């Protein structure tokens, strides 16, 4: 495993931007899907809300969290990335994200395709922190699964 330089995750412009200016931070009232997640090992929290439009696409998202940089930045990126997607597309994106974090070394095209989220691939070099980037996604999946009934 390569040894990541701290700057890779703490001085990355995209991550820093999401950390400082979290997107969709307002709590959504009247959400169609809401989910809360907690990392049992550190106590970090994620709260997600989604409103779907008539076509079943994510129209609005709310994300609030308490936690470390990675956790917060991921939540913010996620809240942007899922807008406009259908629930199956949300799940596919989550699978893609998991693959980027835990699968074999991701190719550049994959990172580019993932947009801002691609910047989180650098967390791979800090293996204990990978779970910080996954919490928002597993919370999202729980919400989608529960929302489906």
């Amino acid at each position, binding site marked *: 495993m390569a040894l990541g330089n701290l700057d890779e995750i703490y001085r990355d412009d995209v991550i820093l931007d999401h950390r400082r200016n979290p997107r969709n931070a307002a709590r959504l009232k009247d959400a169609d899907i809401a989910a809360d997640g*907690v990392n*049992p*090992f*550190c106590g970090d929290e994620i709260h997600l809300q989604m409103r779907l439009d008539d076509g079943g696409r994510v129209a609005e998202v709310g994300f609030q969290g308490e936690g470390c940089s990675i956790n917060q930045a991921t939540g913010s990126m996620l809240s942007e990335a899922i807008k406009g997607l259908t629930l199956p597309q949300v799940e596919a994106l989550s699978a893609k994200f998991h693959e980027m974090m835990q699968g074999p070394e991701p190719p550049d095209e994959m990172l580019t395709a993932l947009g801002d989220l691609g910047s989180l691939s650098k967390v791979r070099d800090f*293996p*204990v*922190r990978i779970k910080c980037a996954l919490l928002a996604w597993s919370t999202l999946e729980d919400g989608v699964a529960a929302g489906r009934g």
Partner: protein
Amino acid sequence: MYDVQKIRKDFPILSRKVYDKPLVYLDNAATTQKPRQVIQALVDYYEGYNANVHRGVHALSQEATERYEEARGKVARFIGAESPDEIIWTRNASESLNLVAYTWAQENIREGDEIVVTPYEHHSNLVPWQKVARDKGASLRILPMREEDNSLDMERVDEFITPRTKLLAVVHMSNGIGIINPVEELARRARAVGATVLIDATQSAPHLPVDVQGLDCDFLTLSGHKMLGPTGIGALYGRREILERMEPFLRGGEMVLEVWYDRATWNDLPMKFEAGTPNIADAIGFGAAIDYLEAVGMENVRDHEIALTAHALEAFKELEEEIDVFGPRDPERRGAIISFHSDIVHPHDLGTFLDRDGIAVRTGHHCTMPLMRELGVIATARASCYLYNTEEEIDALVDSVKRALRYFSDGAG
């Protein structure tokens, strides 16, 4: 080619002497010896990366967590589980059985239900169900044994496994007399009446290939120390759907998700069943033991032990007049456990005699008192083999038993 001498070299204790005689270790059903690979795994852990798992951001904790979870994966693969999440670490097989008794059984057994066991059960697969039966107003049914060869009377199984059966809890290989029960068939019958199936593979998994899918069981128990692993680590296999529906057993750190003063929520499998700091080193050591067994090959272990059993049964034939050997004669239907009794000498006195020849056997009831009663004895002497035992060791045993019989029939007994 199975090279038993090469295998023996991996076990430091086997070059030890006892009373100046080479150690002949034939007490493997009680606990097995450890190859240097397992001992080294413990040393490597404590000297190199000892740390608490799961919750640390530092390098040691990360390394410990990876190796610890890797070991869980090895156990899962070894018995054919679908996922490492279905493997719960315990101290030993006894705790695995109690876990099921305190959770699944307390939640699911009701008044009038029946729990079916065999006469061969180790106390650890009997006494926990006695409590469940008493707490719930259920009853225990004991499958019948045939006198001729001390095997289960399969023709009468339908009288015992009935729609009232809620749980079948049966030992795969008997530590008392070595017999291998037809657990696939029993499991099939139990499933047909909707019962849950638990298999005590504590004594079989070390000695032959065991596969939870083939056995079609819901629970299965293992003890690391009986399969080249360290003491203090065992496992419970549970089918995921069942484990997910069960309440936790021990409560505390690690097994929770969120805790308030008045309530708590549970972590995911397998952590939901693992409270407090786990036995990290020994789990990793158990993993190393499985690596060792897989490198030798479980089919090869089994073949070696069948050959040893055949050799031993043949040798004991000479002593037919003085000694009863329990269980079937067919080495395919049993493990390499020779449990025997003689009216000439009490098993203890025999054990002491053998000990002075450097031969370690176990004498007593082997934690199977009800089975001893069925056999009409209080105790037996039991020689139990493993992958490192040799035909020469069996010969040494038989020679020593012969001399003991002479010694004690000369009036000492």
